């Protein structure tokens, strides 16, 4: 769906689009991410929406191994990578030292802390350290770039992998024609259930929505979490030139709903004028090709039903929140 002029103007004002276009990228060219990868676009958007000095913590993964290779880095900000499962714990340490040094005036003002992890490093192996950091209330933003599998090691299933996807460890075969048999873990809701002040879901196709959420998150003290869809043409088996298009389809089919949970109040931030059938998102992706074969007849209906169930639940909760606090609607 095209944005209405009114919405565009509002969001544009919120993120000061014209000024953004003049700002220096703090995630620079020269990184070695694959052509067409969604993750660097996500990182650029997040950093462009960050109008503060920032320290970045990066979980092991595609983004990490491709962006800082001795003696080169694409990061124009202080950056730390320690291991796979602990971007949140590592950043918690940095943020705590910041508070300690601030007490004696030995640290600069207004520094923001952002962790980037893929879905493997966030939904799976890093869930404990993320949960711990959120519970302790560190003043930081954790951004998960969710491409739905362990792409760095060669497309293995994670708990973010969608139902029915063919990956190298959930392959569709003669004994199991449907690929991954389990639904995704709903991490954004799990993070919101920590009672943190801000959790949201975003997509690079809806960049104003994404950047507004990041900007908003930085103005809130405490732990924040944003889950951002990041198409991977290698794992999704899509063309290298359509990661934005495919992420738009993810949103418009409501496979990847855009919403935020602020102080417990859930608000859907984008409702497609016409909710498209899930098939439109699945069809261009090689990882779902088998679902269109005769032996999987009916499976897509199960996928559609799951998407509908989640979407209807979000709409219902969003409407209820708006009734509770009408000021936040729109």
């Amino acid at each position, binding site marked *: 769906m095209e944005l209405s002029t009114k919405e565009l103007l509002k969001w544009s004002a919120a993120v000061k689009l014209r000024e953004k276009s003049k700002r220096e990228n703090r995630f620079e060219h020269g990184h070695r991410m694959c052509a067409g990868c969604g993750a660097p676009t996500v990182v650029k958007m997040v950093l462009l929406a960050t109008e503060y000095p920032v320290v970045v913590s990066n979980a092991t993964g595609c983004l990490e191994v491709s962006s800082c290779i001795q003696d080169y880095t694409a990061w124009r900000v*202080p950056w730390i990578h320690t*291991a796979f499962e602990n971007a949140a714990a*590592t950043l918690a340490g940095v943020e705590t*030292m*910041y508070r300690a*040094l601030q007490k004696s005036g030995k640290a600069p003002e207004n*520094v923001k802390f952002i962790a980037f992890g893929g879905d493997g490093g966030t939904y799976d192996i890093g869930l404990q350290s993320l949960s*711990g950091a959120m519970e302790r209330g560190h003043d930081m933003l954790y951004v998960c770039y969710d491409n739905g599998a362990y792409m760095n090691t060669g497309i293995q299933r994670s708990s973010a992998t969608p139902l029915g996807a063919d990956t190298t460890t959930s392959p569709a075969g003669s004994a199991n024609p449907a690929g991954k048999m389990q639904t995704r873990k709903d991490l954004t809701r799990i993070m919101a259930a920590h009672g943190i002040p801000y959790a949201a879901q975003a997509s690079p196709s809806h960049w104003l929505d994404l950047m507004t959420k990041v900007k908003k998150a930085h103005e809130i003290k405490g732990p924040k979490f944003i889950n951002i869809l990041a198409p991977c043409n290698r794992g999704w088996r899509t063309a290298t030139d359509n990661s934005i298009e495919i992420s738009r389809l993810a949103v418009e089919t409501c496979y990847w709903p855009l919403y935020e949970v602020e102080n417990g109040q859930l608000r859907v931030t984008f409702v497609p004028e016409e909710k498209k059938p899930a098939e439109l998102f699945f069809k261009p992706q090689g990882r779902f090709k088998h679902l269109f074969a005769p032996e999987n007849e009916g499976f897509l209906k199960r996928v559609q039903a799951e998407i509908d169930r989640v979407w209807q639940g979000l709409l219902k909760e969003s409407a209820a929140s708006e009734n509770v606090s009408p000021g936040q609607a729109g």
Partner: protein
Amino acid sequence: MGKIVAVTGNEAVANALRQADPDVCSLYPITPQTDIVQRFSSFVANGLVKTELINAESEHSAMSAAIGAAAAGGRVITATSSQGMALMWEMLHIASGMNLPIIMPLVNRALSAPLNIHGDHSDGMGARDTGWVQLWSESAQEAYDNTIMAFRVGEHMDIRLPVMVCMDGFIVSHSIARMEYLEDGEVKKFIGPYVPKNPLLDIEHPKSFGPLILTDLYHEYKRLQHEIMGRVKNVVLQVSDEFARLSGRKYGLFESYRLEDAEIALVILNSAAGTSKDVVDELRGKGIKAGLLKPRLFRPFPYEEVGQALKHLKAVCVMDRADSFGGYGPMFMEISSAMYQADGGQRPRLINKIYGLGGRDFMPHDARGVLLELVEIAKGAPVRTVKEYIGVRE
């Protein structure tokens, strides 16, 4: 002047940490270390230190947060034991690989399975190859002194390495002993202010910690770590000399006890060395030329000095409170290496005894039995078996 007190090892170490007044302490409870972080938390709650606490949700995160905090640019502590150290293992390598001077008391405890909370050295020996400096301590006094010295060693600009200070779980950590505290001001002056190196929080000069390094430079990077380790010995000696001037307590790379004219000796770490020294004295009274060597700096290991100290002996038993299953005890391997390299090729006959696992008592009669066996070996008796468990209930 210091103050004479009767305290447990944990209390002594907690007070050393209080006197160091770190910027950040990340913590996670585990027996028998818990007492240290409890005490430290109460120091924070009562404003006795300026430290910010991180109550991590696991030891893996405790060490990850310690690394993040140290990279950010300040003084960092944590503490652990046993399974906690095992869970940290991945991150121990990253702390040393990034040259971050994190200070960590390790209250030595057995590793599972079967589950056991009591003292042995399996945890510390398992961390042997992690790139940390290791200082081992016989008593509450030594653990306290080593903790204070650890800050100077780890934060020294020539090395910048994490340091673990080991003491025996329960045997030392939970036993009350007489010892001497230094004055807070003296310790503060001795340790000095923290000087950051390439801090992450220097926003104007962005640094990258933890890049990918493949076949082109990884090997060179590791050689650099090896070279840095080579500088530790002198730093430890220099810091120990300074500490001796402050406290009157003299520490070297290891302790030699009646070794100079000895013919037989034990090599033994930590609390069991105390028991053994009494037995050495007893046998000396009977005309047996017994001695003892108690390692202190285990990583890096002072091969040359240990080799020199032991080479004139006729027979030595290396006592290990840990086992490398399928191999000799870890300390035995070090001593064997040291003796093989010793000048002139002169060396004693060596045997290895595994003792005290999972907190099994090590009694004077255990030390006596081993020393009397050495008397026979020194006279030329055959070695029954090189490696043997002692104190076993059959």
